[in-house]
């Protein structure tokens, strides 16, 4: 019997399902996975690696992060490099898979990279410590939010420049209890994987602590990457919450919003909180955008300082759009490396780790500091109140709230 003959269609179908589930979900990237190298003589260039999902379900997030890193490298080189050394950025697509993330680190260390930035997915971030320690390399996580990255899975070779699930969602509980103390009936609408659960746990635990009348009327856990949220939408509405907390992001948040609109979902709520909308969701939805409070790493209008002005101006010049929080964090990470390397006057990983621990540095969001004990950056959490309007964009930012990171840092264990 032929292995793949028409006599054996089920075997063939099985092969296809396996390939679709493993191969296609990590879409091949065409030129994106190739190294992006700056011009010029690279013999003495300081190589910095970007690794992140540049294709697949969250490829857009990785692409945005790469833009921030590319702009930072351009500016650093224009201003004389790091310790007079030109910087070269090399990038690899992790496709959002831990396996490909590990391979990306291995490939780039073969090319002489010891310093990394990026990482969209917490799964990838959590898989990296062994290979980083083996290769004596260092990474600054610039998006992945799982608490374990700087918590129970702490590695000396991993720093996080962006906030984590605990900080983001504890700040949400504090802020929205203060703003809307009359809202007591809450529902959860978050993706059923580590990040969704970590987000809800932080929000839910803090609300229980501070709001004596707080009540959870429904918890809905759709699968990450689901294409149909209608049953979840109907069951959340049936529980009649006053407010909904959601940790959906990127494509999932857009699909959910589109499917919720016919049910008049958002108008039946007093408050909808989405903990991660870096502008990608509002921009995609445009005139379909619903009212919400969005948690972001950064927003160009939230800060009035020289570093932010320069970042916004240069970013718009290069990419013709305003920067978002995926762009900002990798951008900031490159300047943090610059400051640490120039302080340490060394590229040795152990020395750099020592220098970064406890280091305070200026950024587009004001001063940040790497907490010595867990390598988590103490940084602001920004919340935006988004309201639909009749502008060409379809929505406006009606209010901005900044919660200082120092108020919401996870207690050290």
């Amino acid at each position, binding site marked *: 019997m032929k292995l793949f003959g028409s006599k054996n269609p089920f075997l063939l179908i099985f*092969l296809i399902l396996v390939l679709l589930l493993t191969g296609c979900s990590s879409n091949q990237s065409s030129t994106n996975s190739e190294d992006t190298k700056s011009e010029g003589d690279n013999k003495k260039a300081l190589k910095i690696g970007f690794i992140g999902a540049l294709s697949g379900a969250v490829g857009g997030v990785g692409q945005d992060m790469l833009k921030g890193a590319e702009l930072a490298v351009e500016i650093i080189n224009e201003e004389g490099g790091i310790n007079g050394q030109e910087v070269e950025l090399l990038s690899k697509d992790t496709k959002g898979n831990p396996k490909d993330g590990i391979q990306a680190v291995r490939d780039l260390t073969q090319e002489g990279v010891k310093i990394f930035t990026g990482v969209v997915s917490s799964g990838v971030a959590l898989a990296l410590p062994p290979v980083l320690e083996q290769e004596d390399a260092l990474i600054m996580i610039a998006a992945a939010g799982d608490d374990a990255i700087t918590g129970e899975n702490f590695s000396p070779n991993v720093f996080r420049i962006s906030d984590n699930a605990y900080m983001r969602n504890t700040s949400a509980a504090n802020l929205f209890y203060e703003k809307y103390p009359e809202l007591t009936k809450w529902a959860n609408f978050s993706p059923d994987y580590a990040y969704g659960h970590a987000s809800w746990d932080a929000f839910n635990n803090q609300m229980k602590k501070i709001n004596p009348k707080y009540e959870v009327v429904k918890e809905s856990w759709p699968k990450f990457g689901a294409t149909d949220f209608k049953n979840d939408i109907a069951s959340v509405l049936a529980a009649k919450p006053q407010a909904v907390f959601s940790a959906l992001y990127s494509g999932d948040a857009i699909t959910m919003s589109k499917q919720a609109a016919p049910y008049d979902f958002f108008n039946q709520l007093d408050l909808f909180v989405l903990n991660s909308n870096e502008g990608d969701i509002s921009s995609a939805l445009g005139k379909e955008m619903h009212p919400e409070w969005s948690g972001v790493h950064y927003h160009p209008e939230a800060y009035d300082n020289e570093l932010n002005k320069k970042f916004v101006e240069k970013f718009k010049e290069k990419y013709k759009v305003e920067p978002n929080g995926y762009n900002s964090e990798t951008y900031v990470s490159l300047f943090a490396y610059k400051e640490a390397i120039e302080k340490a006057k060394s590229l040795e990983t152990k020395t750099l780790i020592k220098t970064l621990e406890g280091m305070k540095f200026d950024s587009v969001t004001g001063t940040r500091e790497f907490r010595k004990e867990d390598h988590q950056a103490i940084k602001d959490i920004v919340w935006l109140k988004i309201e639909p309007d009749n502008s060409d964009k379809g929505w406006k930012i009606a209010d901005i709230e900044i919660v200082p990171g120092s108020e919401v840092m996870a207690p050290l264990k």
Partner: protein
Amino acid sequence: MDVVLLPLVNGLTQAAVLFMIAAGLTLIYGVLHVINFAHGSFVMLGSYLTMFFFVGKFETVTGLFLFIFVSSIIIALIGWAMEVFVLRKMYKADEFYMVLATYAILLMIEGGVEKYWGSSPLSLPLPASLNTTISILGISVPLFSILICVIGLAVMFLLWYMMNHTNLGKIIRAAAADQTMTNSLGVNVPALFTVVFIIGIFLAAFAGGLLAPTVALLPNMGVNIVIQAFVVVVVGGLGNINGALIAAVLIGVLDSFLGFYVPVLTGITFYIVMAIILMIRPQGLLGKA
């Protein structure tokens, strides 16, 4: 009542779209013996092309359905080129090579879409008059979901009519049953293959266009849905359109009810149902033993 009607309508909506995709897959398999790996990317292309024509140009209900149709025609022509220039040269080769060829086409389509539209999620806004609910037995049901169910029924009827009451349908059924005999009776089998492939791709693109206003558009969006369509094809019986219909409704509705009442099973219902049915009937519901 809403705890029955809403999951039912959601399940039937899912079934309608799945049926259109699975019908194309199973039709192509039944006649060409090709398992089209690229089928999902044609669904995705249907969504993107509809968005390309619709957004900022003619954003009305008429515009939406017109562009879904126009996009499906254009994509069916791409399917025609794929069959004539790629698949036709490979029918005599082992099916495994066909899988590789269609997989290569999938990668090319996804890569092309990513290059042109980027990998960030995009959205096609549903016209306001469709973005509402209608009251059925006092329950608010999304109007567009009802429309998708109705369109699914219409497609089902047209396919049934074509297969059972037209010469083309008779020839397709004959070719599926015995290709050698069909060929010796003077039927131009290569041309028939092309026609069948075009119909299958048209259905995939049409389903993609209908999906577009209800989901975020992503270059890899076809993958999940085509996996579900493969399950429907297998459960229905390879090459059997009626089986695909029964399987799509059965699985779509079961998945919706289980998702509503046992949320932890959302997303895996498909595979549970497939496993149970294949244990009882390895050839699928209406497949030949």
